[in-house]
């Protein structure tokens, strides 16, 4: 039995052994280490194609890990302080679904904030669980949803003692953290599990003086997007398990929908990134924090922009703030966040993560340096100088509390009809409408469509947000539930 240590990367090492063994492949994939697809080799490189291989005995099997993948999972569990870790190759979407599907079945209640990613509500459509929404607190000036107040979670728990779990979004896209420890304590006292969508919180496990991670707070499961701030390839992710959660049950649930041809490019990127963070994460995130803090102070000194941070902390719905996130309120220069986002890309060759009605978000990570920060700061300076407008008439409302009429699953499978979206007020939506990113639904299946929601959608479209969710690609029509109109 090998003694494992964080210097090791078992999947990566097995792939290197595979490559040097010069195996003649009579298995899939058919590109045969790239030889059958020279154009792809020219584009992606021979090194890359030579390890795009299928499961085999020396490389283990993602659906049923017994050797190198198992070892890599054990190392990841140690690095994250989890009881067990699953390597996920279908994105954090599948990680979130694995959590919810593992603890809820049809009709079960799950307590969650409404400002979750679409993947969480999609899980409810898949399993038929019923959401008990806790409306997140809202920062009025910034127009962003915050964390859940502990008292609101408590109220939901007391009113729904039969709920199976509390789902927490921590940190939010904007870097807002809830009081995770108190929520865990409260939920556990009432026999409920705590599931954490920690897509944006990989660094909490490695950096110093950052908000508490889900595992450290005692949560039962967490979904971690290693690819977002941890350096692995897009679509690779982890599910972390806390104490007392059945590894075998969760694996069965994951195997319901996860591919049986797990990509070794993704798996090795998780393995190598875990090793990097375990060995060097502390210094990496120290540097990320320094870059973000530097950018915040420079951007705030331009005037007109507000790069918000820990000063927002209120002890409850903003229990902590993730200072690696560079979230900037832009409305005071008369531009919507989405407009600044577009100007940065179209005129300054700078791609940031997203812009909403009032804010932009730049992701700062292991891959950034001072010179890149200077470009962002200098561009924001120029955008203010050249593009700023009178801010009157700007839409100042971001988050709309939903009116839930029926469960997402019921609405999704109900008989529906298609209406012009402008004429849909008063109907129950049969589908999602959202800006992507961030992918937080403005309206979700089963919710009442209101004039306020329609105004918000029209404004978002007008400002250039990338809208998605409806069957109609132009978001001009919407499917509404028949027989349930108000």
């Amino acid at each position, binding site marked *: 039995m090998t003694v494992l240590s964080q210097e090791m990367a078992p999947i990566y090492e097995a792939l290197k052994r595979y490559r040097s063994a010069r195996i003649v492949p009579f298995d899939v994939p058919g590109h045969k280490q790239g030889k059958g697809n020279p154009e792809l080799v020219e584009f992606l490189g021979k090194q890359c194609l030579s390890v795009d291989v299928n499961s085999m005995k020396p490389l283990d099997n993602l659906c049923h890990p017994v050797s190198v993948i198992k070892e890599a999972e054990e190392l990841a569990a140690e690095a994250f302080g989890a009881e067990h870790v699953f390597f996920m190759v279908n994105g954090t979407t599948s990680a979130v679904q694995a959590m919810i599907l593992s603890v809820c079945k049809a009709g079960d209640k799950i307590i969650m904030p409404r400002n979750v990613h679409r993947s969480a509500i999609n899980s409810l459509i898949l399993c038929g669980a019923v959401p008990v929404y806790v409306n997140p607190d809202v920062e009025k000036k910034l127009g962003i949803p915050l964390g859940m107040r502990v008292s609101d979670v408590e109220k939901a728990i007391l009113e729904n003692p039969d709920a199976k779990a509390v789902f927490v979004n921590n940190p939010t896209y904007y870097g807002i953290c809830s009081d995770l420890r108190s929520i865990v304590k409260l939920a556990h006292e009432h026999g409920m599990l705590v599931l954490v969508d920690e897509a944006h919180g990989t660094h909490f496990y490695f950096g110093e003086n950052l908000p508490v991670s889900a595992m450290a707070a005692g949560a039962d499961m967490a979904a971690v997007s290693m690819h977002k701030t941890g350096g692995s390839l897009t679509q690779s992710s982890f599910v972390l398990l806390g104490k007392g959660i059945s590894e075998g049950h969760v694996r069965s649930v994951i195997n319901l929908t996860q591919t049986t041809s797990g990509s070794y490019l993704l798996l090795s990127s998780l393995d190598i990134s875990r090793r990097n963070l375990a060995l060097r994460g502390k210094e990496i995130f120290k540097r990320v924090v320094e870059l973000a803090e530097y950018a915040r102070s420079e951007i705030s000194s331009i005037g007109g922009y507000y790069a918000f941070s820990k000063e927002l902390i209120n002890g409850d719905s903003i229990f902590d703030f993730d200072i690696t996130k560079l979230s900037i309120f832009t409305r005071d220069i008369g531009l919507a966040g989405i407009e600044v986002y577009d100007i940065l890309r179209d005129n300054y*060759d700078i791609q940031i993560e997203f812009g909403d009605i009032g804010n932009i978000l730049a992701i700062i990570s292991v891959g950034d340096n*001072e010179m890149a920060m200077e*470009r962002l700061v200098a561009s924001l*300076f*120029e955008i203010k100088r050249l593009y700023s407008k009178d801010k009157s008439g700007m839409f100042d409302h971001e988050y709309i509390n939903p009116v839930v009429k029926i469960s997402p699953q019921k609405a999704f499978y109900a008989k529906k009809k298609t209406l012009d979206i402008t004429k849909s007020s008063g109907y129950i939506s049969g589908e999602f409408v959202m800006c992507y990113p961030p992918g937080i639904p403005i309206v979700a299946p089963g919710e009442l469509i209101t004039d306020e929601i329609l105004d918000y959608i029209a404004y978002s479209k007008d400002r250039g947000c990338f809208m998605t969710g409806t069957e109609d690609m132009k978001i001009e029509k919407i499917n509404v539930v028949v027989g349930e109109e108000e």
Partner: protein
Amino acid sequence: MELWFTENHTPNVRFSIKVDKQLCTKTSRFQRIDVFESPEFGRFLTLDGIMMLTEKDEFIYHEMIVHVAMATNPDIENVLVIGAGDGGTVRELSRYDSIKNIDMVEIDEEVVQICKQYLPQTACRLDDPRVNILYLDGLKYVRTKTNEYDLIIVDSTDPFGPGEGLFTKEFYGNCFNALKHDGILVNQHESPYYEQDRISMMRAHKRIREFFSVCKVYQVHIPTYPSGHWLFGFASKKYNPLEFDPSRWEALGIKTKYYNTDLHKGCFAIPTYVKEMLENADAV
């Protein structure tokens, strides 16, 4: 034994200089810095393996990046130089008694220290009392200035690595803002010849002309740069470099090896294919 320095001018073209010895090699926070001694070009400086200057041909670059603007407006007093760690640009500027202040903003202090030690031919005037050297990113420095300079010279490396920020729209916009109402911007403008340099050249031109009412390009011949055909940009809020008073500059009695007032006019005459590229710069 034969020792050769080789630079890939493109993936398919190489340029080599026979080397006597390597005088210095150092990796700073930003780049690798080397100085070599060669029989043909004397000492030469490379950054990340890219030729910056040789003792034999640096006069062409440094005279032309300075004197065209100074002859166009001999009343220039306050100058900002960005990059230029080798000191050659400052050396040429220091020949004008009328200049009162030269701020030089170089990101990499190690380059300056090494040039002072190994390349006194260019670094000789960095101690001039009018020169203030600041070691920071030029992009950061320039956004803190408004309506301050008569002339900004961007003596940068190629737009890959530390010099990247100095070829951006935000940088040129910030320069516009830092210049006075009659300010001039001169920049190292890459080459029209090979594809990669050409794209950089066109992008720079596209971005500069968004801000400046006068936006021209002039050419020089630098034997050790890719293709030997190199460009500088001349942009101004007011001055047309072709409408200048040659006698005023000649009266200064500055002795040059490359620049003269005839060449001043001639260097703005550029080949047809380069003209077309500049006209179509928006396409990149």
